[in-house]
């Protein structure tokens, strides 16, 4: 009987068993990187502080994923799943920030109550509208009285 998930790859993906020394090295590297990020974080670098902290965190995360979670030995689908999830995280955060960063104040008429960063009044009920619906209603009433 042919079995779908049988593959030569499995033998290749077998556990490599190595000494505990490797884990100690990674542990010390993580502690050192923590100290570095605390030290550079306290300096409150104006421009690249955030970037530096994120780079250090990414290096630490990579060490954990590769050696503590054994991604360095387990190739193929495991790496693909992890990599794809990271790509989607970058897409989510990257595109949200690009959207926010490239917004500009729309050419609203002077005195407009509306802003591009505020929820607009969807006008379910003019008397309970959140952003000026009631004012519009007052204006209409005012006009009809005249």
């Amino acid at each position, binding site marked *: 009987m042919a*079995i779908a998930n*049988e593959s030569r790859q499995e033998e290749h993906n077998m556990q490599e*068993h190595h000494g505990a020394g490797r884990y100690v090295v990674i542990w010390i590297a993580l502690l050192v990187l923590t100290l570095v990020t605390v030290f550079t974080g306290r300096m409150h670098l104006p421009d690249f502080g955030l970037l530096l902290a994120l780079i250090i965190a990414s290096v630490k*995360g990579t060490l954990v994923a590769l050696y503590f*979670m054994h991604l360095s030995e387990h190739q193929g689908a495991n790496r693909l799943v992890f990599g794809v999830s990271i790509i989607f995280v970058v897409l989510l955060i990257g595109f949200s920030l690009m959207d926010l960063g490239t917004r500009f104040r729309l050419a609203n008429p002077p005195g407009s109550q509306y802003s591009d960063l505020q929820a607009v009044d969807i006008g379910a009920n003019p008397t309970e509208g959140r952003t000026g619906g009631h004012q519009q209603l007052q204006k209409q009433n005012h006009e009809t009285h005249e």
Partner: protein
Amino acid sequence: MSSAHVTPGSVPGPKLAAHFASLEVQKHAARLGMWLFLATEILLFAGLFACYAAYRFLFPEAWAASSRSLDLTMGTINTVVLITSSFTAAMAVHYAKEGKNAMVGHMNVLTLLMAVGFLVIKFFEYKHKFHIGTLPGRYYFYEGIQLPGAPLYFTVYFASTALHALHVVIGMTVLAFATVRAYRVGDFNANNYTQVELGSMYWHLVDLVWIFLFPMLYLV
């Protein structure tokens, strides 16, 4: 590299399900399933990271002031505690592959103790915040920082750290099961360590999330 290619039966191992070609394939499937689950966990936290990024972009001053109001010493101690617990969790897998069940238990107990330590430190941080009033949204009453967006920072802070703490508790539960089995049954060996490995992977994810939360919330 030792050849752990053991034919089922010669070393006591887990039961081989009929739809898997071999124990290796079965192990591989379990691990891949765990990675898929961890990917969904990463995306769960990514939502909060995106909130953090967007509101930090909109309220940079409030973000800088609020992050400096956190206790950096406690945050750093917690980071060291969590990284060390991740190390002992990795060592538990190492000993499980060698069949040293007592050491698996000891390593997991160390991991659990550090997890408790992490939660205790987190509790004192929360307590301090409830005391001075750096709380989410309309519950905010801290007078030291009066900037638009400061209550929002603490909304993101409490949401992300509380979700992370929940994961710490879940991870502790998973590791506790493996610990009891290592001490009581003691049947982990080169052929049978999936339970320890997957529990440890979950714990590393908890560590991974904190590695990013710590600089985001405390440092920058």
